[in-house]
């Protein structure tokens, strides 16, 4: 079927397009205007804004820890009415089904789950399989696993580490590699209560910095498109701005992605011993072109923090709102689920909110700062439209800031910042740059041959309204959303890489698992045929 989107404002930074024009779609792809052919379907999008489908690089939408949060907090997601349009299980709040529906309604077409624990990978993929409409991907976590730590202790060559990383990505069907407070969860099992970049993991002797360097090297050796995705040490601790700065230096000029950086921008100045260090961190990011970051913006409301950084979550248990939490000393990584309510009246929460916005606004290059709330840690993804409004309107920021403790704003630079994001910059940050960062050449743009993942918005003075309910959304050329309402389900792919490796590593892992765990290494694999829908994966190429 030949589809024409006629007369919209096409915002496509990859192809340097920002102007009125037509967009043609056929067989799920964007095509050149076909000479002499009539479209089968015309959508008049005069006065509308046409962008590629948005891509979220870091959102906790699936896996054991997310599911634990669902089960821990039934009071946060009680449904009270069926959805108007009844799609299977879409009325179930916070279900995988509702997740796909809500993302699609906002014009998102690809979402990455950033924390797939290798020993729980099958559940992660089962959950992703039940997210409708979207394409998905998952970042596999290493860095607290005993096998890697033992390789480092024995001083094994980078080749062995790369083989192990590749074998684990293959078994877990990961799109990239994540490390979470590298060494911290394992150290916590040895009763360590604080763990920094140069602290050594008991029993193994290796430091967080060495783990980070080894994994960064492995990603580079394997030519995996996405750089090592790092959840750094000391998350959430006053004064951790020094950790952020040291970690940027620790990258040594090599590619590194720093996740939810907002949580690492805290100074310890002022009467409260809590202040924003975001300006210094933003300056360091601006000066380090090898580094990309996502923000992890917080918003004022009830949410729940879900993290494999079990040490951090254990230390946060006292701040749980409501007062209950789950701490999981899992294999390798851990898990912690701690509900939290960010309040406008709370000094620290106001500083955190400002820190995130400062990062967005003070990092100059929209290709290197990514749009996240670290869903649901800073805020649920459903708050994205409000965050877009804050970025695009100084007035909206001033209005929101007026409700906060002014003493909190005084320890930030936010009130002095005038910048407003343009639509083109929003399109870079949420479409073009994420595709580039993940190595997804087929999306994030509206050029010929690209996937016909397209979001059409109705401009509105109320920016949140505009981004909250897309006028039209196409996934693979299939019109799935009209005026913010999903019309039907379709099932997307899960994106994965498949770097080659020396299969001797499989035998070595079998031996290690038999000896230590007393169970087969194969037990943790994700066989494709056990997932509910046929042909669930799409491979993303590693560079040659």
């Amino acid at each position, binding site marked *: 079927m030949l589809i024409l989107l006629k007369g919209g404002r096409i915002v496509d930074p990859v192809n340097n397009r920002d102007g009125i024009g037509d967009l043609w779609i056929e067989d799920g792809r964007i095509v050149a205007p076909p000479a002499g052919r009539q479209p089968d379907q015309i959508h008049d999008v005069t006065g509308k804004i046409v962008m590629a489908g948005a891509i979220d690089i870091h959102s906790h939408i699936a896996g*054991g820890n*997310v*599911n634990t949060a*669902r*089960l*821990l*907090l*039934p009071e946060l*997601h009680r*449904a*009270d*009415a*069926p*959805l108007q349009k*009844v799609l*299977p*299980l879409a*009325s*179930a*709040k*916070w*279900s*995988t*089904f509702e997740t796909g529906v809500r993302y699609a309604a906002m014009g998102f077409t690809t979402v990455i789950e950033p924390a797939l624990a290798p*020993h*729980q990978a*099958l*559940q992660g993929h*089962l*959950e992703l399989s*039940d997210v409708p409409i979207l394409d998905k991907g998952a970042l596999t976590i290493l860095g607290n696993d*005993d096998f890697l730590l033992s390789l480092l202790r024995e001083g094994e060559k980078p080749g062995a580490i790369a083989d192990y990383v590749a074998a684990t990505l293959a078994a877990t069907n990961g799109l990239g590699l994540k490390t979470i407070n590298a060494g911290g969860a394992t150290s*916590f*099992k*040895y*009763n360590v209560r604080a763990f920094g970049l140069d602290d050594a993991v*008991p*029993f193994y002797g290796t430091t967080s910095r060495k783990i980070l360097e080894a994994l960064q090297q492995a990603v580079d050796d394997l030519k995996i498109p996405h750089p090592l995705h790092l959840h750094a040490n000391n998350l959430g601790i006053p004064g951790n701005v020094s950790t952020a700065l040291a970690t940027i230096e620790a990258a040594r000029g090599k590619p590194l992605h720093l996740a939810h950086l907002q949580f690492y921008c805290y100074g310890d100045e002022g009467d409260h011993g809590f202040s924003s260090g975001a300006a210094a961190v933003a300056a360091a990011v601006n000066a380090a072109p090898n580094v990309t970051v996502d923000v992890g913006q917080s918003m004022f409301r009830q949410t729940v923090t879900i993290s494999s950084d079990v040490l951090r979550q*254990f230390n946060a248990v006292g701040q*749980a709102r409501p007062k*209950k*939490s*789950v*701490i*999981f*000393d*899992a*294999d390798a990584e851990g898990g912690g689920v701690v509900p939290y309510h960010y309040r406008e009246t709370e000094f620290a929460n106001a500083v955190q909110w400002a820190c995130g916005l400062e990062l967005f606004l003070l990092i100059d290059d929209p290709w290197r700062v990514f749009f996240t709330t670290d869903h649901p840690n800073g805020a649920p993804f459903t708050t994205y439209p409000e965050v877009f409004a804050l970025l695009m309107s100084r007035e909206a920021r001033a209005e929101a800031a007026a409700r906060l403790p002014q003493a909190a704003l005084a320890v930030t630079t936010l009130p002095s910042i005038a910048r407003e994001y343009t639509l083109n910059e929003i399109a870079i940050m949420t479409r073009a740059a994420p595709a580039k960062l993940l190595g997804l050449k087929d999306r994030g743009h509206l050029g010929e041959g690209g996937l016909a993942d397209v979001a059409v918005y109705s401009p509105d003075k109320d920016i949140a309204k505009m981004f909250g309910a897309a006028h039209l959304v196409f996934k693979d050329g299939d019109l799935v959303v009209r005026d913010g309402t999903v019309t039907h389900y379709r099932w997307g792919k899960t994106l994965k890489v498949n770097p080659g490796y020396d299969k001797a590593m499989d035998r070595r892992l079998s031996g290690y698992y038999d000896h*230590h*765990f*007393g*169970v087969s290494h194969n*037990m*943790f*694999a*994700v*066989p494709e*045929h*056990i997932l*509910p829908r046929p042909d669930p994966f799409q491979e993303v190429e590693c560079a040659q």
Partner: protein
Amino acid sequence: MTEAQIDGRPASLDAAAQRAAEILSRARLPIVAGLGTDIAGARASIALAERIRGAYDHLESDKIFTDLDVMRQAGRFVTTPNEARLRADVLLFIGKDLTKIWPQLLERLAPAAVPEFDLAHATRKLVWIAPGRAAAQVDGLDVTTIDSNDPHVALASLRARVADRPVNSGKGAKRKIDEIAQILKGARFGVAVWGPELLDSLAIEMLYGLLADLNKTTRFSGLPLGADSNAGGVLQASGWMTGFPMRTSFGRGFPEHDTWRFDAARLVDSGEADAALWISAYGREVPRWKKQIPLIALVPSQVKFDHEPQVRVEVGGPGVDHDSAEFAREVGAIVARRASLPSDAPSVSSVIDRIAQHIGGEA
């Protein structure tokens, strides 16, 4: 050849599915119960429950909610069998039923083996509260035991002594409690192991309190053994599909969860539920309700019912007749299992898909 029956007489699978669809569509409040099935079966069952606006429950729900109710009230603190095996220098077993619940427990945790990841690499200590005669099964290790009829009382005394608070008990008993409190406080990474039958919610909450106190100075985590018939896996699938555990109803067109209201046996015996789909692919369990209502059963061959179900389909065993995904107690995660004796016996999910096809409506 698939074995299916309608009113006790042989029928084709398709005829059985069609009859099942008629019964379920006609009901005011149908229930999907038992749910002893793999992840694929659970997914199909929950999707069907929504479509027929029914409620769903699992045959082991009571055990699941013993732990889950505590979590939803106060939280939880847990670890995995692998960590217990490789790291725990102290194991705290509670109850005489542990090896009955999980016959491979001792083989899997290998208490007599030195924990490889323990810094001191020392012989483990095993404390067993209320072991009955089970402690005698542990070879190669001295076991410190306390006999107790009431694990809650034993745990309360231990918690008090760990926190250096006084307890009211005889001198001998107090000496024992003190000895064990010292073992627990001296652990580097201890793991408490319990089952959901001998411990009630109050005892488990007390145990988590003890773990919280111990974690002020050292490391101690928990390992609840859970329940059979893939209750753990069905719980997870239910969580991501509806946000809620089993005992959830779609009667009003959206999921509502209530452990009392949507208990399958209560719904049937109170007359609220008027048709049931019973699923038990792992074993020969039959419904516990008393009242007779139209019943469709997806069960292994030769399961005996008090009253013959209107529709019966013999299904294969997950991981036996067909490959499956299910919760594996030995690793505390959902894993894929290869069929050990592949056969043509239909899976629960394939039978439910057939039933759903006859119900029509939007999918």
